[in-house]
Structure formats: structure tokens, C-alpha cells
């Protein structure tokens, strides 16, 4: 697939800059578009989610909590931002130096450059192979302490920074994500209770997200390099998902991170207990096998997220749905509206 095929006009007027609770509403006060297996799109409120699912269906959420992973740093280029992305140890990360929250890199930095972060320091060891804006970075102090002292949640140009709890969901339990796994944000205790009352199961995986992808740079979508992210699919979760499939229930990933974790744990027939770091890249060439649906937000053009959506339903239907969302003024990004996508039915599957 060529990169232009994932392109559409960025609806900047529809970027959500504020979470609903900051407007005096509830977190579940967002809209929900459903793209059905036949390709038609319908419009709902998020609180209708339980009625759009069937008893026996299973939601899989990401239980990773968001870190204050954005650090102010001083380099030989002056004041910059260092966004931590993937943790190898408390003093070694893949990190992204940026000019500012709104201005990405790559910055003209070199191997061995030192970044001062308060009373700590980071040394740029090597740029990430194939992703020059990311650096393997060695820290003089524990990053958990640096984040506690100086860190704030990663944020970009379309939204100001909010307190850390704004970036957590009902299911966040293990800190480790550089950016909020946001798809479960509108699942409030009342939606959660309605889901359970409807006989819909909920189970969790861990996938600690790195910094969000910029646009795919390679002309060929399938050639884009992704960096690793730590994940964990427990035996209990694997059993719950396999049991749901066995009884004819549908498995819905809440967030693209969950799809990534489950596809990594997919043996070709079932989900197995599995942990480690995954850099699995899902695109139309790979397909998606482990889930029947995806509850997510609305994503930017030419990103790996969009490649994954195309793996689920084909780029044609993704674009139709997005045109529909733009017409109906759905809001984009982590504080915006939701999108439930059912996988296209395949014969003989």
C-alpha cells in the first residue's frame, strides 16, 4: 500500500482540546459512531455502548497507566523537551527530543550529547535505527524520580496540559505508558455497570504505549519501522478471550494498543499467555485475527493507527467512515469521540 492511500484532509477544526469533564460534562458524554460489518455507519451516544453489544461479548481494555513522561531539558540547542517513550530500565529509555510540545524533531543532536534535566542528566547514545527522531538515552538518575520531580503528561499542540489523573482511565493500574491509552476514557463507572448488567465481560491486558507515531515516512506503508512496546497478556486473560470465542461471543479490543498486544499473543488459532516487548506492525498485508471489533478514537491521516484500521475493514471503508465523522462533526484525538469498528466478515473464516 502506498502512503498516499492513508491520506485525508486533517480536520483540524475538529481536534478536541478539552476533555468533556473540563466542560462540566461527564467523561461518557461523548459520541459513538459504529461502523458495521456491512460497512454502514450509525451514530450514537457513548452510553448506548452496552446496548450495541450482546451478552457473551468481551471487551479487552489496556490496564497500563499514564506516566508524567514529558521532561523539560536543556541541551546545547537551548531549552527543549524530552518525551520518554519506551523503558528498557529505569535509566535507559527510547526517548524523543522535541523543540517543544507542539514542535517535533528530529533535532540536530549528536551521539554523546548531554541533556540536563533538573539535577539529572540524559546522554544520547544512538539514534533509533530507522526512526531518527528517537534516541536510546542513558540517564544519570532514576527516571522514575526525574518524572516525579519534573515530568508532566505528554501533550501536543492541539491541547494544553492537564493534571495526570485526566490521562488515566477506570482501568489504569500499572504505570508505564508514555501516552494515555485513551480508548477506555469514556468508560465511566456507570457505563461499566451497564456493560456488566448486560452480560458483557471485561478483561485486561497491559501494553505500555510509547510516543505516538508521526506520519508514516516510508513511501510503502508496510516498510515503516515501529519501535518496541512492553506488554503482558496473562493466562487468565488469554483463557477469557478463548472462552468468549468458543461460546460465539465477539471480542472487542478497547484501543489499538490492545489489538497490538493480542495479535502478538495470537498463535493462529487461540490467544496464549505472552509477555515481552512487541514491535508488531499491523497493516492491510497482515490483517487482524485475534479480535472481532475495535473501540477506538478518531486518528490522524497517514499513521500506523490508520494502517491497523485498514487491516480491519479496508482503507475504503475507513475513509467512508471518516468522511461521515467529519460531516457529523465528530471530535478527534484522545479527548474526542469514539468509534466502534466491527471487522469485515470473511467467508469460510
Amino acid at each position, binding site marked *: 500500500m502506498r502512503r498516499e492511500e492513508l491520506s485525508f484532509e486533517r480536520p483540524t477544526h475538529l481536534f478536541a482540546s478539552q476533555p468533556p469533564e473540563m466542560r462540566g460534562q461527564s467523561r461518557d458524554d461523548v459520541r459513538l459512531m459504529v461502523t458495521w460489518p456491512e460497512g454502514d455507519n450509525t451514530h450514537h451516544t457513548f452510553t448506548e455502548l452496552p446496548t450495541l453489544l450482546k451478552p457473551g461479548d468481551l471487551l479487552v481494555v489496556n490496564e497500563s497507566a499514564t506516566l508524567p513522561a514529558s521532561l523539560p531539558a536543556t541541551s546545547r540547542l537551548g531549552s527543549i523537551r524530552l518525551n520518554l517513550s519506551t523503558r*528498557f*530500565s529505569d535509566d*535507559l529509555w*527510547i526517548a524523543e527530543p522535541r523543540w517543544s510540545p507542539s514542535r517535533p524533531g528530529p533535532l540536530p543532536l549528536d551521539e*554523546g550529547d548531554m541533556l540536563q534535566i533538573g539535577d539529572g542528566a540524559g546522554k544520547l*547514545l*544512538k539514534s*533509533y*535505527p*530507522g526512526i531518527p527522531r528517537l534516541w*536510546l538515552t542513558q540517564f544519570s538518575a532514576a527516571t522514575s524520580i526525574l518524572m516525579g520531580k519534573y515530568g508532566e503528561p505528554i501533550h501536543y499542540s492541539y491541547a494544553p496540559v492537564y493534571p495526570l489523573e485526566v490521562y488515566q482511565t477506570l482501568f489504569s493500574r500499572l504505570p508505564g505508558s508514555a501516552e494515555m491509552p485513551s480508548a477506555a476514557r469514556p468508560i465511566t463507572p456507570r457505563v461499566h455497570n451497564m456493560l456488566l448488567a448486560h452480560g458483557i465481560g471485561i478483561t485486561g491486558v497491559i501494553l505500555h504505549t510509547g510516543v505516538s507515531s508521526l506520519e508514516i515516512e516510508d513511501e510503502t506503508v508496510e516498510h515503516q519501522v515501529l*519501535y*518496541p512496546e512492553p506488554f*503482558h*497478556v*496473562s*493466562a487468565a486473560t488469554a483463557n477469557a478471550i478463548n472462552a468468549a470465542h468458543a461460546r460465539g461471543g465477539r471480542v472487542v479490543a478497547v484501543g489499538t494498543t490492545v489489538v497490538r498486544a493480542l495479535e*502478538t499473543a495470537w498463535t493462529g488459532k487461540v490467544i*496464549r*499467555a*505472552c*509477555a*515481552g*516487548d*512487541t*514491535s*508488531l*506492525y499491523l497493516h492491510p498485508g497482515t490483517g487482524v485475527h485475534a479480535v472481532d471489533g475495535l473501540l477506538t478514537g478518531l486518528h490522524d491521516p497517514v499513521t500506523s493507527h490508520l494502517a491497523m484500521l485498514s487491516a480491519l475493514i479496508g482503507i475504503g471503508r475507513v475513509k467512508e467512515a471518516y468522511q461521515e465523522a467529519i460531516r457529523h462533526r465528530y471530535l478527534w484525538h484522545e479527548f474526542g469521540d469514539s468509534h466502534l469498528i466491527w471487522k469485515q466478515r470473511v467467508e469460510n473464516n
Partner: protein
Amino acid sequence: MITSRTEEELHDAAASLRAMGAKVSAITGDINDPNHRTRLLQETNLMGGVSLLVNNASDLGETPRPELARASIDRFRQTLETNLVSPLALIQQALPQLQQSHGLVINITSDAGEAGYERWGIYGSSKAGLELVSKTLAAELKPLGISVVTVDPGDMRTQMHQEAFPDEDISDRPLPEVTLPFWAWLIHQDPPTLSGMRYQAQGTLWEIPA
């Protein structure tokens, strides 16, 4: 401590490591020479002992790579010596130091050790042997607190890869630095949880037993 038969390459590698701030000792020699192995380990002992042993030295065997039916048996023995026997000999000699440090042994293998590709039987069987040696050692050395893994680095633009494909332009293969993130990841894991695992450095999953 780094070692190689080629003095100039070894010294270049040592210089680049020192530029990164590492304390490096570099000794030229052949890993098949027991005296060389002894000397290496005497030196590491003075440096504080071995906590990580990487067996990377390998011999591709005859080039062009022959079919097994026509392969030189003497040359086969020589390849096994370098790729299979000497790594085990070095591990045996390093055991006291590895036990002291609860160290990790990384043996570099290859997909040729699993696949049965035509004309890869000599090199491939040496690597298949190293896979089994590693798995067995992982089980046997567990009580000593020593861990063993194998790593298949994948196709890379190296001198050995060029020798394996003498008439091919291999510039489409990535440089060895493509595996750096994997090494950074691996050396920060808790070795006993990984012992017995086989990794593909360029693979999409670096697994830890769940």
C-alpha cells in the same frame, strides 16, 4: 574484554568503545587456541570477572558454500570446532567467574541452524548444535545461577554475509546497528527469567516467559 583474530579490526572496535566511555581490554587471538582462551579469562579475572559472555566468533566454512554431499570433511570439522566446540570450551573455562557473577551467556546462532536451506548444511549444523548446547546448558547451569540464551541476529550487511553471497549486492541488508535496540533491551532483563530462550534480534517479539 573483546577478542578477534584480526588485530586491526579489534583495535578499531576497542577505540570506538573507549570513545563511548567504556573500559576495554582487547586481545588478539584464535578462540580455538586453548592458551588464548586461558589468557582471556586470566585477564577478565583481573578486571573483576565475567558477568556477560557473548560467543559471536563464527566460521562460515568453505566458500562457495558446498552441498553436504560434496563438502570437505576436514573443513566441516574445522567449522564445528570454531562454532560449536570452542564456545563450549570457553564457557567451561569461564564457569567459576560466571558463577560468581550469576552471569549470562549469549550464543549467537542463525536461522540456518533451523531451516535446512540448501548449501547451508555445514554452517547450519554447527549452529543447530550450538542451539542444543545452549538449551542444555540453560537447564544444567540453572542451579549455579548462570543463564544462557541464543540470539539469531538476522541478515545483516557484514563481511560474513558478503562471503556467503559472494556475487550478490547485499546493500539492501541492514547494518548491524539495526540490532542495537535489541541488545539494549536484552542486557536490561533479569537473566534467570530468560534462560533457555532463543531470540531473533530483528524479530517483532522479544519474549519473556509470561
